């Protein structure tokens, strides 16, 4: 064996515990990288399976959806690995610095010193990276297994809404992914080892011999802290040590900070996802929904330049009513039928037509204008419920009822305001072709009077319940709460199929689709998605955190060994063993505190910013993940304190005089 390689091998053999910890960090890093890359490869196979090799119409969006998280997670792993692995090699180089001095004195070149550290890295990589890749494939396999536990439930739910979708994630062994994982893992570890290797090769032979185990005395900073007898001595010493040795503990504190930050961020992300889920889900008091949706095309009217919607297979009110009656036929189930038209009309209004609140909202959105054009939503209901709404509004059957409520996102809070002041009883409505219609408003319902079936996430500012005669719509919903849900769903599917035969065609081919699904299905899908995402993100953060914890253990135990003489000197001048232990425990808490001081605020800021961004789109209720923050706080201090306690145990066995003589 080459002499430089032999040095590296002996160093690995001699420092077994650190070799194991470093190898474990490299293995975990390679495993995480492989798992992420292989998951992306499996995701790619799944998407190409049902979207086609180029991902179809929205190919770029899907590719980015897959690529961005992969790159982001890989970047996190690489950053963490470089900090941790580089620190392990820095410690190894520090220990061997006097050996490097001797080697330099007997004629070793800078390059040979560099090579001996790099050989150490290559020897570690030889075992750890293949093991890591295997572990990565195992993690990927296990992860895909977990996904498949839920995927059939997801498929059943999604298929009730989108017939042609069949998610199937299978374990993919891609040679390209293997090569990418191998190259990135090897590159990361080599780069991490290169940093301390370059530093060690630059230290002169004299400095190597002079400083022994401490390559860089500039790591010790002069501090303003003065020790006096006013406070607890152990605390004062610990505070001074932490303050002056900060460079030595830098990587451990950084790795712990990153772990804390990631854990808090992921917990916040989960809270946000749950907030979105709660916002999207609207409780209409029904258990089953059947709907019909026709394919549409938005075009611009050539004369007016206004947007209009073209729909080849709209549903007319008469058909909708017929279906309502047929559905009622199943065990006399009450059906709430409603259809919306969002695109035919726009209301032309003056500021006087609007309430002050609405004027404020609009002036915030687009400034003050003399003429205001607002989108109109026309709603038709089944005959029975239309009658009920007319009665509730105090108008005769056949009238137009204004649902005078506008829901908007006020900096993250959902607000309801009445949009129209109702000084006029007629609304001027304009079609896309510029033709005008005047509609009389016969009755008004306020927010508290509007039926809950008509409260949904996206509504237009002007909402009118109109008589259904002669109206054709793009879509229609039938909501029900049957006693026999399964039976009703089967019956409803048959009814819809008889009106809108799909004949095995999808939405694009047929030009329409009809679905029957449970009202809770969206929530269930969101729940499964959140559970899966949370499982993978927490597993990822846990494994990445484990790399950080390995670094803490390695650094703390190394620092304590390095300080054995200093601690023996303290004991020799009369500090009891218990006091030394106490001082080290305080140091650990202070270091843990430093990691928390950085990691917690940064994590909380990221969570806060994410929540702010999401709140611009959805008025979600969001709370800081305080439980996760508390867990992080306790765990971080425990990791630091536990590591110091265990490492400091070895000090009890050592002979003070022998240690001082070294």
């Amino acid at each position, binding site marked *: 064996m*080459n*002499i430089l390689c*032999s*040095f590296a091998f*002996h*160093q690995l053999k*001699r420092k077994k515990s650190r070799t194991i910890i470093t190898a474990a960090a490299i293995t975990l890093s390679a495993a995480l990288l492989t798992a992420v890359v292989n998951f992306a490869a499996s995701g790619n196979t799944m998407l190409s399976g049902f979207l086609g090799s180029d991902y179809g119409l929205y190919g770029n969006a899907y590719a980015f959806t897959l690529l961005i998280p992969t790159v982001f997670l890989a970047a996190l792993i690489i950053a963490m690995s470089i900090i941790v692995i580089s620190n392990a090699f820095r410690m190894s180089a520090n220990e061997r610095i*006097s*050996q490097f*001095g*001797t*080697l*330099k*004195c*007997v*004629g*070793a*070149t*800078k*390059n*040979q010193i560099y090579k001996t550290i790099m050989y150490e890295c290559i020897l570690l990589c030889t075992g750890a990276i293949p093991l890591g890749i295997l572990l990565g494939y195992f993690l990927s396999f296990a992860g895909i297994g977990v996904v498949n536990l839920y995927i059939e439930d997801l498929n059943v739910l999604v298929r009730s809404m989108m017939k042609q979708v069949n998610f199937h994630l299978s374990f993919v062994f891609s040679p390209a992914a293997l090569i990418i994982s191998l190259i990135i893992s090897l590159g990361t570890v080599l780069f991490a080892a290169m940093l301390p290797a370059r530093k060690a090769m630059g230290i*002169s*032979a*004299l400095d190597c*011999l002079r400083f022994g185990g401490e390559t860089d005395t500039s790591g010790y900073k002069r501090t303003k802290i003065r020790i006096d007898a006013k406070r607890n001595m152990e605390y004062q010493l610990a505070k001074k040590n932490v303050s002056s040795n900060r460079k030595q503990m830098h990587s451990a504190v950084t790795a712990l900070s990153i772990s804390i930050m990631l854990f808090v961020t992921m917990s916040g992300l989960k809270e946000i996802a749950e907030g979105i889920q709660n916002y999207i889900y609207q409780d209409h008091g029904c258990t089953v929904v059947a709907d019909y949706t026709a394919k549409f095309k938005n075009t611009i009217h050539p004369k007016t330049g206004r947007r209009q919607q073209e729909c080849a297979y709209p549903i007319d009110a008469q058909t909708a009513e017929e279906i309502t009656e047929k559905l009622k036929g199943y065990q006399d189930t009450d059906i709430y039928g409603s259809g919306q038209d969002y695109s035919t009309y726009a209301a032309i209004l003056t500021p006087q037509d609007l309430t002050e609140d609405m004027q404020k909202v609009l002036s915030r959105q687009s400034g003050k204008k003399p003429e205001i054009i607002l989108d109109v939503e026309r709603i038709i209901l089944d005959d029975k419920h239309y009658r009920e709404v007319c009665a509730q509004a105090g108008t005769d059957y056949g009238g137009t009822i204004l649902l005078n409520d506008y829901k908007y996102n006020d900096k993250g809070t959902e607000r309801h305001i009445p949009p129209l002041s109702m000084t006029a009883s007629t609304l001027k409505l304009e079609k896309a072709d510029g033709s005008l219609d005047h509609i009389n408003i016969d009755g008004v319902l306020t927010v508290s009077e509007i039926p809950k079936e008509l409260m949904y996430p996206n509504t237009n500012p002007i909402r009118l319940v109109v008589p259904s005669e002669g109206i054709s719509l793009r879509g229609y919903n039938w909501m029900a709460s049957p006693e026999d849900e399964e039976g009703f769903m089967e019956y409803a599917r048959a009814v819809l199929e008889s009106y809108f035969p799909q004949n095995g065609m999808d939405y694009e081919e047929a030009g329409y689709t009809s679905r029957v699904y449970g009202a809770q299905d969206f929530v269930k899908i969101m729940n499964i998605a959140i559970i899966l995402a949370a499982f993978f993100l927490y597993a990822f953060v846990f494994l990445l955190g484990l790399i950080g914890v390995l670094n803490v253990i390695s650094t703390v135990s190394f620092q304590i060994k390095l300080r054995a003489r200093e601690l023996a000197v303290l004991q020799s001048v009369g500090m009891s063993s218990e006091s030394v232990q106490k001082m080290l425990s305080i140091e650990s808490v202070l270091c843990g505190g430093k990691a928390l001081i950085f990691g917690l605020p940064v994590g909380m800021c990221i969570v806060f910013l994410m929540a702010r961004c999401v709140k611009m789109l959805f008025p979600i209720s969001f709370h800081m993940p305080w439980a996760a923050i508390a867990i992080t706080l306790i765990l971080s201090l425990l990791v630091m304190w536990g590591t110091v306690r265990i490492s400091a145990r070895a000090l009890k066995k050592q002979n003070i005089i022998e240690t001082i003589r070294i």
Partner: protein
Amino acid sequence: MEILEVKDLTKMYGSGDTQVTALDHVSFQVKKGEFVAIVGASGSGKSTLMNLIGGIDRPTSGDVIVDGKEIFAMSESALAIFRRRNIGIVYQFYNLIPNLTVDENIMLPCLLDNRKPDEQKLSKIVEMTGLSHRRDHLPGELSGGQQQRVSVGRALINDPAFILADEPTGNLDSKAGREIMELLLSANRKANQTLILITHDENIALQADRIITISDGRMIRDEVMRV
């Protein structure tokens, strides 16, 4: 024939008010086969001089010429290679590699050159150091005297231009010290090996052909003891 020429060597540390002149315009020459002892009080600049002669440190001004070559004109890598082939260094604290055996430690300068020394030569050096029965032992399994003998063996393996020994007996008891001196003197007398030895032990210095005295970084005396 001069094997070593030290020309106007000056070494300063620090700057401004804290500047210290460790070596102040020191010049001398050493002939092939000569045994030169460098003596001086603690902090006089002996070790600085040794580090500069060995090419381990670089001077503020002046030059060191070994076998006709200006060592400080070389690049750092070239100087390292030159050092392992032409200069044998013996330290007070042996500075052996703890995980290499006696044989490997002695062969180290050759191994760094990616070559194995002649087996006969290695055996001869091992025999000379009296460690034939301990060739596979690690430094930790040897006494201080034995470790220093390995260090001398390592210095001799490449037939260097000269051996530079810094207080080689300073960390040994008198018997082991005597044995090391016998080994170094034997190399000097029998193999005509040039020897430059730093010591503050008068008895050791008196065995040299020449004694150079350093005080406060200056060479204050250069006495020829025997021709």
